[in-house]
């Protein structure tokens, strides 16, 4: 496959949202697949913006390393089972609202199991909104990956909304190295009920994870035990730059982790805690 196999002089056709869909020109080795829950049909080829798939599953079934899956700005899909993304596949949402938040939505209605698994190396997930779950689930909505895999994954510009049904993490890292999480927000959006579990859980001895310009916002209720970012294992060279802890959201780190944390802003009683997990 050649890097100039597919050329998009005017870009992928997005007007707002991630720069991947608003910038141009692009040349790539892989195929661009479009998904629209409003206008799509899984019998389409999915390779034209005007003939998109209707579901992420249809695109995921054909995508291989180097391919890009573009979710329309009004994409809105509810999942009842896991989706797994393999090596080098990019999922990117078009569209952003007046606050700059993504508009392409992936909602999970499952009582157990991980929602979206980034299982391969160099996967990307960009500019997608993850609303609170439809039912309680103690697993993560997005996980990189399962006991390893997922090295060099990028999660960029995503928003995780958290309420009482989020009895598991919004995003969980499970043994993957050199994962980057950039420009993401983890926000408690409910005002009543139990506080949700942490937005981001770093769970299994990763190396070289970078978290850049991310925000944890406790809102009115706060996260469970106050912790929006939880590091439960000994990370090596964890780099957290531009961290914002708003409305009392805490970040808790394992005492065995190494690296750095650079704070951009804190409001309320947000804390940095260093302690071994219970």
């Amino acid at each position, binding site marked *: 496959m050649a*890097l*100039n196999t597919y050329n998009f002089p005017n870009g992928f056709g997005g007007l707002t949202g991630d*720069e991947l869909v608003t910038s141009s020109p692009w040349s*790539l080795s892989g195929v661009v697949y479009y998904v629209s829950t409003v206008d799509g049909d899984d019998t389409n080829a999915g390779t034209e913006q005007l003939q998109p798939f209707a579901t992420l599953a249809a695109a995921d079934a054909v995508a291989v390393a*180097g391919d890009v899956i573009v979710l329309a700005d009004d994409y809105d899909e509810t999942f009842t089972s896991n989706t797994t993304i393999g090596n080098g596949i990019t999922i990117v949402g078009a569209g952003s609202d007046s606050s700059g938040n993504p508009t392409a939505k992936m909602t999970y209605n499952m009582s157990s199991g991980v929602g979206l698994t980034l299982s391969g190396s*160099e996967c990307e997930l960009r500019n997608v909104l993850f609303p609170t779950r439809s039912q309680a689930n103690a697993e993560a909505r997005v996980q990189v990956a399962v006991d390893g895999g997922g090295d060099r994954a990028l999660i960029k510009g995503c928003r995780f909304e958290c309420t009482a049904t989020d009895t598991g993490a919004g995003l969980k890292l499970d043994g993957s190295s050199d994962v980057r999480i950039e420009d993401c927000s983890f926000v408690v959006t409910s005002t009543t009920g139990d506080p949700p579990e942490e937005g981001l859980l770093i769970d299994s001895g990763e190396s070289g994870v970078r978290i850049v310009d991310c925000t944890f916002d406790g809102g009115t209720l706060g996260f469970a035990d106050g912790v929006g970012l939880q590091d439960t294992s000994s990370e090596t*060279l964890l780099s957290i730059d531009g961290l914002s802890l708003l409305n009392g959201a805490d970040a808790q780190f394992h005492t065995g982790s*190494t690296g750095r*944390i650079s704070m951009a802003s804190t409001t309320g009683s947000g804390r940095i805690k260093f302690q071994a997990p219970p």
Partner: protein
Amino acid sequence: MTMNDSVYEGGAGFSAGSPLLVDGPLYMSGTIYYLDSVNGSDSANGLSFQTAKQTLSAGLTAASSGDMVALAADFDETLTAALNIAAGVILVGAGTSAGLPTAIIRINASSDHALIMNGDRAEIHNIKFPVNVQANTQGKVSVGVLAGNSSAESLVKGCLFEVGANDGSQISVEDADGTHIEDCTFNVTGTTVGTGSIGIDVRDVGIVGAVFRNLSFDGFSVGFGNAEAIDASGSSLGRCRFENITVKNGSNILIDPVGTGRINVNGVGSSRVIFA
């Protein structure tokens, strides 16, 4: 060792430059070594700006994985031989002028790099690299060493490279899977250039997962050597990402078409992407 071994409540203490030196509080498992080429002394401990060391050699010798070597905004040192940045060490400059770095590192040697990122996850932030003092075909910054030490997952961010006739490449990417080069500016400031005076030279074959993002190349009146801003010909990059690359005035991008990934280059004038 844990990430609250060093707590800088007010940040690293600088008012401009890389956010790493401006934001705060800053928590580190390592230590910040301060360098001041004007008022520092290598016999000092380097643990505060008031007791800064003077030379890069002293700072990089003291630093180990997780440590930061912070250069004062008016730091200006001319090296005569390459210095190694060890695995996990962060070299970062304070200070900006018109949004570009002011801390300066240059090389005055006939055949040597200025800096070699000589281990995994090394970082360089916000440093200005002027034109070589004498003709020197070696890349100013070498990410890894070809057929030698790798430097996987390294980061070069927010640096300014000034290009002239004495220069080889500005960054040579040697043996370095997962390298990130971000937010850097490459400007031809000389009135002439050599054929090898290019921006980024990807020298190894089959590098996987390299990311080149938010880079600006401007050849100004004479262009880069052979009009090459990036030479990744013959490199067979795997899952590479070139995003938001701007090329002006004789700044071509040469890419080996045999590879996987994607490329977004905005050209001004006749600058172009050549799949060769």
